[in-house]
């Protein structure tokens, strides 16, 4: 396994050598690396209940200038982002379940959904999974993919899918995530080695038991055991890799101070801080954040911004709830802005970590009073190492968002003919720089 984490050019730059002095090397071909030699990253953020269109979209397509009320906290990044209108969750729309907005998280990053009313089952892996699997072929990371969430009150469905019918459950506890990413840092190597040896012994045992178990089981049941075994193997690999990885010692990677709070605003703050850190110090390159699970989000209210009604109830109010819904959405995107700010403050060569990243935001529907699964609100923040043009409000007449997923996949070093069903193949090359 290639454990080269940065390209040679980047390392030389760090050592103060001019890029012009570099011999011709193939460093740029290091998988997933941007032109600066620093790694490219992909973050997706999903939230439910759509948006209020006139607070989210600019009036006219073209260069982004002043952002609306929903996205006001992202104003400093107007030139580094795009707002996209007009793309649909096409398989759900084509299945004639056009008002199934509460049930599309399974399609957000897979571009697929079982063709059934209110289904929450994806029929393929999501791009966060395929992109991170591809990176893991050549780069060893502490966590190739982080699947995270802030609070689960609904159906427990996330946007991350390992395969058809197999969703990646999200980590909801920032403190646990902190321990996962930093626990080993403080442990003496000999002790760490023994801990790892024990974990390997146990997981080997577990894997052997799973392999021997239920040989007579029916087909569906064997699949459950197979999925379990796969997860145990994945865990083993991560533990093995973590043991051989050098501890990152740059200033960027100091453990953050978490609030440790249990209210939704503090959970979100801690999670997004952890996300920024994990990306900056290359513990991961792909993060999927599902703000709340799908299904409406009743049981969430927002007292810290003065919105005390249920999330779902507010979204349903239509025009009369627009002010409150905009406040909620503004808060959701302020977390994205927090992440963008931290990444943009991290210099990587002549660019910033944000420039080497693409944060894609999605909702599960157009707006909360219609539940329509077309025209879902999307933003892209960061150019993914110069891959995407930025600073635009782009209005498509219509089209499957699958093509955007394919473009993100390509930007992250995994070119694909399409994402999801073949009829939705293709990419959005007009977005490319």
């Amino acid at each position, binding site marked *: 396994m290639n454990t080269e984490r940065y390209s040679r050019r980047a390392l030389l730059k760090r050592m103060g050598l001019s890029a012009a002095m570099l011999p011709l090397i193939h460093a740029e071909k290091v998988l997933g690396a941007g032109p600066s030699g620093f790694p490219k990253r992909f973050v997706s953020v999903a939230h439910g209940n759509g948006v209020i269109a006139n607070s989210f979209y600019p009036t006219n397509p073209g260069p982004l200038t002043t952002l609306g009320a929903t996205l006001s906290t992202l104003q400093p990044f107007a030139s580094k982002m795009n707002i996209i209108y007009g793309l649909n969750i096409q398989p759900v729309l084509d299945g004639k379940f056009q*008002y199934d907005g509460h049930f599309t998280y399974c399609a957000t990053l897979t571009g697929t959904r079982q063709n059934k009313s209110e289904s929450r089952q994806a029929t393929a892996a999501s791009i966060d999974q395929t992109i991170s699997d591809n990176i893991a072929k050549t780069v060893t990371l502490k966590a190739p993919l982080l699947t995270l969430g802030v609070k689960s009150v609904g159906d427990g469905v996330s946007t991350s899918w390992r395969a058809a019918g197999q969703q990646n459950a999200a980590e909801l506890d920032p403190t646990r995530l902190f321990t996962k990413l930093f626990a080993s840092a403080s442990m003496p190597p000999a002790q760490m080695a023994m801990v790892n040896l024990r974990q390997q012994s146990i997981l080997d045992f577990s894997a052997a038991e799973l392999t021997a178990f239920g040989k007579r089981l029916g087909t569906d049941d064997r699949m459950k055991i197979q999925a379990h075994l796969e997860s145990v193997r994945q865990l083993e690999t991560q533990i093995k890799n973590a043991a051989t990885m050098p501890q990152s010692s740059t200033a960027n990677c100091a453990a953050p101070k978490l609030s440790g709070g249990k209210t939704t605003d503090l959970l979100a703050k801690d999670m997004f801080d952890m996300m920024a850190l994990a990306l900056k110090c290359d513990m991961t390159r792909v993060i999927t954040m599902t703000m709340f699970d799908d299904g409406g989000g009743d049981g969430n209210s927002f007292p810290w911004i003065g919105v005390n009604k249920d999330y779902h*109830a507010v979204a349903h109010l239509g025009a009369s709830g627009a002010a409150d819904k905009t406040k909620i959405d503004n808060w959701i995107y302020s977390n994205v802005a927090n992440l963008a700010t931290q990444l943009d403050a991290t210099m990587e060569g002549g660019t910033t970590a944000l420039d080497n990243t693409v944060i894609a935001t999605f909702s599960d529907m157009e707006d909360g009073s219609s539940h329509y699964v077309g025209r879902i609100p999307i933003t892209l923040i960061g150019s993914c190492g110069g891959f995407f043009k930025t600073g635009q409000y782009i209005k498509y007449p219509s089209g499957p968002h699958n093509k955007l997923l394919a473009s993100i996949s390509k930007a992250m070093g995994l070119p694909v003919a399409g994402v999801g069903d073949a009829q939705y193949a293709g990419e959005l090359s007009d977005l490319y720089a």
Partner: protein
Amino acid sequence: MRTGARVSSVTAALLLAVGCTGSINEPADPGSPGTGNNGTGNGNNPGGPVLPGNPGDPNAAGPMPLRRMTRAEFNNTMRDLIGDTTSPANTFPLDRDPEFLYPRAGLVSLQDADTLKDAALAMGKEAEAKATTLAPCPAGMAEDACASSFITSFGLRAYRRPLATDEVTRLNALYTTGRTTLGLTYAGAIGLLVEGMLQSPAFLYHWELGNNAPTVAGKVVRLGPYELASRLSYFIYNSMPDQALFDVAATGKLATAADIEAQVRRMMADPKGAATVATFVDEWLNLDQVIDRPKDPTVYAQWTDALKQAISDESHALVANVMKGDKTLTSLLTSDASTVNATLAPIYGVNGVRGTATMDTTLTASQRSGLLTRAAFLAVTGATDGSHPVKRGRRVYERFMCGVLPPPPMTVPPVQTASQATGKTTRQRFEAHDMNPCSTACHSIMDPLGFFFENYDGIGQYRTMDNGGVVDAHSTIKLDGADHTFNNAIELSQALANSTTVADCFATQWFRFGFKRSETDADQASLNTVAGTFNKTKSIVDAMVGVAVSRSFSYRSPATGEMLQ
């Protein structure tokens, strides 16, 4: 979708209501026969409606899909297996299955595997600390021999069946790794064994057959005594079998319906059995959500964690009270006995409760009846700032009458907020919304049921005035095929207690809870057993007995691709 013969009186209204659930457009109730329930491998229902009372093949039995332990099952099993009190499974991903009402564990994702690993490690450490009692090794006996003995005896309890030879071999090998490679002490290696067993599928999945060939009986498979003991235990105790169950499994005394019934009645005298009824009620009506339910502090300043806990406790106390008495659904729906503390007392208008103690009391009969008029149900189904007739009506329709509401294809204009409609009561605001042509049909089922609850605000306080107007809780609904008019939720509760539709639905809910899956065509005779046993007495224990003695509990249909020989 399908609607059943027994609910045909509402079929026409349902068809009109297609897609118009309006402002409570949440997922349709999972697990209902009409919703195409149950995803991959969890037992589909390909045939017609399965409703209590339809004729069924007495020799048929439904499927038993492989099912992983839920968080609650894991925690309870740790309590009973090693005396743990830390509830280690609380870190696991939630057991939310969007296609089923009752908790069901999903496929093991990386996050599941990671949290399982951590819980197993913590429990292993706990076992290590308790090694002298869990795995005593008398002086003069070789530690390896003690470990072998532990593997056999503890293994039987952890896997709920005797271990196979190859399992014993692999566990002995793990012990040896612990003592040699990892340099562990005897106690440490015992902990390692426990850690390993807890990550074994034999522990984590409900499949107490191991790799043995199943006993085929005609077109179905008969469960073995250990399989049956475990199934019974996780149904009645929500945990592993106790010693008495292991004993009857070992001695063949769990063979007949009478044997099974005797065990259920014995187990229901145990606090673990009574606790399961409270768990059922929590899950059936989502009352456990009261702990996480936000309310608008500008309307309900008293909505604190302490109050939420007191409301949840009172709901459990009501169930416990019923189970100490005549154990009937009727009492659950009509009892006015309550247990309140000083935090909860003002919600019910009870005086004289001081300090931190709870007090048993009788609530005002004209204001409160059973479960549906208590704060837990009313707060969970209320809005953040008031009542919510649609939500309350829908909950009763789906959970008590097993009615099926289809998802909405249309946009429905929202209900006005209270501030937009000064001087209008909640009911008037919702009625105005219903004059919309779509809504007229849509809400004709939910709203009339919900209006009965208008005497209770968003946190369950009794009221006669609402937003400046006089509360009108009088309403007319269809029940058991006829129109009925009642004055309030107290009269409704009494009617629900006497309804055949509700009795059948209650039996169906127990079936789903007991089997952790929806009913299938092959379960028709079993569902009839549950309903029949329950209907004789309306006793909740009899509903549970009905589940346990039903054909599908002791037999199962073979799975597709299963190796039967």
